[in-house]
């Protein structure tokens, strides 16, 4: 099994940070690579270490959602949402990260690759030349997160209409269904007219 050590040795200084967890024999590996090396890493892993199965590619918006779950009592004081961005395993420094999973189909070892996407350029290299299957995944990521993939032949929308504005999976894109309708979970029990005030009278 290609251990994390082997991977870092082959990838060299393209690796920014890595993480490993899981019990013996079922280790899952996370590797964050340099944005500029995103494409080369895929090629190297495929050619040298046999990670030839393309599982998926997507992105994460690490910004906490300013809208919450839409299940707050408007009469109660709203807890302020902590806007600090905390990245997950293998760290990172940008709001957006792309991540993808490759598997070595002989050893069945899987590997999650991550890379930062610069906040200003929002662009990263495309994997289409390495894994043909990345085509649709990158199109999906493009329309959902607004990340551009340099070298992708055809970044059309997959799901949304062509003139759709916004990128739905970004955290600052509101889920309107949870905003236009009032939450029915707001406590709507009229108090006793006389003014009995002991809470928890319900049995």
């Amino acid at each position, binding site marked *: 099994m290609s251990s994390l050590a082997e991977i870092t040795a082959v990838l060299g200084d393209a690796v920014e940070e890595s993480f490993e967890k899981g019990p013996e*024999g079922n280790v899952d590996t996370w590797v964050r690579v340099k944005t500029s090396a995103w494409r080369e890493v895929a090629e190297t892993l495929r050619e040298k270490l046999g990670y030839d199965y393309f*599982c998926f590619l997507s992105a994460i918006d690490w910004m906490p959602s300013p809208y919450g779950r839409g299940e707050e009592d408007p009469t109660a004081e709203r807890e302020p949402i902590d806007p600090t961005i905390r990245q997950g395993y293998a760290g990172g420094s940008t709001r957006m990260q792309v991540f993808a999973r490759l598997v070595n189909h002989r050893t069945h070892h899987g590997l999650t690759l991550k890379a930062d996407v610069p906040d200003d350029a929002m662009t990263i290299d495309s994997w289409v030349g390495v894994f043909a299957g990345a085509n649709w995944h990158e199109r999906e990521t493009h329309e959902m997160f607004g990340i551009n993939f340099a070298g992708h032949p055809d970044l059309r929308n997959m799901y949304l209409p062509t003139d759709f504005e916004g990128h739905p999976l970004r955290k600052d894109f509101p889920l309107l269904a949870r905003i236009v309708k009032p939450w029915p979970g707001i406590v709507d029990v009229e108090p006793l007219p006389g003014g009995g005030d002991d809470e928890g009278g319900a049995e």
Partner: protein
Amino acid sequence: MTMLGDRQQLAYIASQAADARVNVELETEGMTLNIGPQHPATHGTLRIIARLDGEQVLWAEPSCGYMHRGYEKLTEVRTFPQVTALINRIDWLGSFANEVPFILAAEQLMGIEAPPRAQWIRTILFELSRIANVSLFLGDLGVQLGAITPVFFAFRDREYVLNLIEGATGGRFHPNFDRIGGLKDDLPAGWIDETRAVMRKMRKFCDEIEGLLFGNEIFEARTRGIGVIPRDVALQYGLSGANLRGSGVDWDLRRDQKLPMAWDKIDWKVWTHPDGDSYARCWIRLQEVRESTFIVEKLLDSLPSGPVMAKVPRIIKVPEGEAWVATENPLGEMGYYVVSKGELGPFRVKIRSASFNNISIVPWLLKGVYVPDIITILASLYFILGDIDR
């Protein structure tokens, strides 16, 4: 087998000819055919735009999104138990199987494991949903190829399996039976005997389908050598399930992955086929239904006793972390990448559904085939629209 080599060659020549014709100057005007979104062969609302020269496809591309429901966004506003109710609607024919990887991912993050009896029952229900799902595929395959009878057999016999699922979980299509830490409830009395009887019926169904379709010379003529996917292409596109095993890759997540499920506790066989054509894919699915009935019976034999629910807090908060769990669902590899921030609901869930990858190969595969082969190839790749669009 030698016959097949010839056919593969013919298919290759045809695709080359299609390519060449585009480049020839004296090109006749082709026809653009819109197959779908409302079309009998598209299992819902997939649309395929095909450029035809006569009956030959020069270029084809699926256009999905007619059923996009934005599950990845919806999971972000739901709590973990609510997500379970949502995600079994992704692949609506094998819905129980959709819940399992998500629950396993959440359990992995919380560091708990379901008790053995729950693992066994989960695996049994997982295989039952595979049988329900793939048996319908086998019937539907007949319809796509013009035989109308198999689909009625499939609906007839799938009903028994759905009754079983409903008897145990309460939901025919959307069980919502998995809980973080185990199952909602134990099996009702008499369920095991009923299941054994149904498994025998399903094997008879497989024999009938084999007689009606797989042995049929017309069926072979329609599927053999059609839509050949070589092994390395299959890996590149991330095909999974029977589509990958049909291309000769011996990989089954049920066997090749350590999960707290009961597959590794019994003996069973992973079926592969070297040809990579439509026939191989369909044939593997037929064998897998049969194999699943044996798996269910063996698991019922060794069902341990005990509780079905581990100790979990009443209000579930999943600790911060990331987890990826994939299982071998009826359609192929279905995985959830769950990111939790220690709150009631997940921070981000990436749903890796099998059909999305399986269908992304279609533009590559459809070059140079004939119009009827579009239908054969789509049917043999077997997608569920909810599983593509999520």
